């Protein structure tokens, strides 16, 4: 049985950007947009929470409990909750894609918080001491001395988290957001005969996307041999 990839080629524009010409973002492009937005949101939230946890012992237990809670439930539940919860709270005006982005960001922020906190704690105490000895306030030491070093060390870990994020956007399939996996299954339902070709191609697209990310990260981090 030979594989016939013409079905992928014929639907390539739909797989890549969905109904973009009708003003509706979709396909691979939507996957990227969702992953990037969720990535930025979770990074901001995760770093902010790590800073709070680092500065205030009392908040740390609470934040850890919160992170534990997120870790202990499947991502798909979070997506379901937000899918039903966000419209219930704010009315129906929020696009499904956005509620999935929020779910992904919320979920990933816990992992980012843990990484950043570990990154901060793994820096030698002498860096902190040098900062406060010069009269810097604790939050200044954090912003100008500790975080820049920790974040640089954490780039490989962030790349891993972001790759997971890209793949996890496929869970948006269950709430019918037209990202790559959803449009692929639409094409498959329409054509019926070529599931292997379609889903192999989709897998390759995810793989290439994550691969490009890793290479880019290596290109960025590589030269700084410090």
């Amino acid at each position, binding site marked *: 049985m030979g594989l016939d990839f013409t079905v992928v080629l014929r639907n390539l524009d739909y797989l890549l950007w969905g109904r973009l010409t009708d003003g509706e973002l979709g396909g691979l492009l939507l996957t990227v947009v969702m992953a990037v937005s969720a990535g930025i949101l979770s990074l901001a939230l995760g770093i902010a929470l790590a800073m709070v946890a680092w500065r205030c012992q009392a908040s740390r237990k609470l934040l850890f409990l919160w992170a534990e809670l997120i870790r202990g439930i499947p991502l798909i539940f979070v997506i379901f909750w937000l899918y039903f919860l966000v419209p219930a709270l704010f009315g129906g005006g929020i696009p499904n894609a956005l509620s999935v982005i929020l779910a992904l960001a919320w979920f990933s922020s816990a992992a980012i918080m843990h990484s950043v906190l570990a990154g901060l704690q793994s820096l030698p105490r*002498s860096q902190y*001491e040098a900062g406060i*000895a010069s*009269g810097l306030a604790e939050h200044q030491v954090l912003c*100008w001395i500790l975080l*820049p070093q920790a974040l640089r060390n954490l780039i490989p870990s962030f790349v891993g988290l972001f790759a997971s994020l890209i793949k996890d956007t496929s869970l948006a399939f269950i709430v019918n957001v037209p990202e790559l996996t959803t449009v692929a299954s639409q094409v498959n339902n329409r054509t019926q005969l070529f599931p292997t070709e379609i889903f192999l191609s989709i897998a390759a697209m995810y793989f290439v996307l994550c691969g490009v990310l890793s290479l880019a990260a290596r290109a960025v981090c590589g030269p700084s041999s410090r």
Partner: protein
Amino acid sequence: MIEFRDVHKFYDKLHVIRGIDLSIARGEVVVICGPSGSGKSTLIRLVNQLEPLSRGDILVDGQSVASSRGRALRRLRSQIGFVFQQFNLYPHLTVEQNITLALRKVLGVVPEDATVRAVELLDRVGLADKRFAYPAQLSGGQQQRVAIARTLAMRPKILLFDEPTSALDPEMIGEVLAVMRELATSGITMVVVTHEMGFARELADRIVFIDQGVILENDKPVDFFLSPQHPRARQFLRQLLSPLHTAND
């Protein structure tokens, strides 16, 4: 300038500083020495509250260290320069940025002026050409000179040195001591924890010998080196001067 009043420091139950009283006058260069574990580093770390005091107080220019918090404590710290044994430069910043960071963030100096001061000080420690280098590209001696320049940039009233040459290869100690000699003769108040007895003999106004958290000698260098009173001080000096011949003491 600095006055220790019945200073005590405990680490849990370990009593490392046991009631130190010591006055250091403005412009004085005081060398603190003693065997390892004697509490000498802890003593100067108490001055800018890198370690909190357990009991007693330290007055810096009349200001109580024990009761300084928040903004007052940060102000006090910005006036006390601290040079670390391991230099503690910020590895992600260039030499110039290492020097200007606290200038800009603590003293609010505008970037152009901060740069001018950094260039001046790098010139003073003989590293004008390393302005844009990163710490990892410098030798230990160069890193320590940058660390001294970083400290001087804040125009401190007091300089504290915590074994500034102990982490250096022997051939690099000289360049750091040369910078310290220049400082010692400039009239700034200096407290130096060191084993460099040459520096102590030549430049110190006073030598304080500490053992097990207590001051045993507090003398002019001449008296300390020629006629130390306490047996522990005599033994310490013997060990420093001829380490191979004291095993049986």
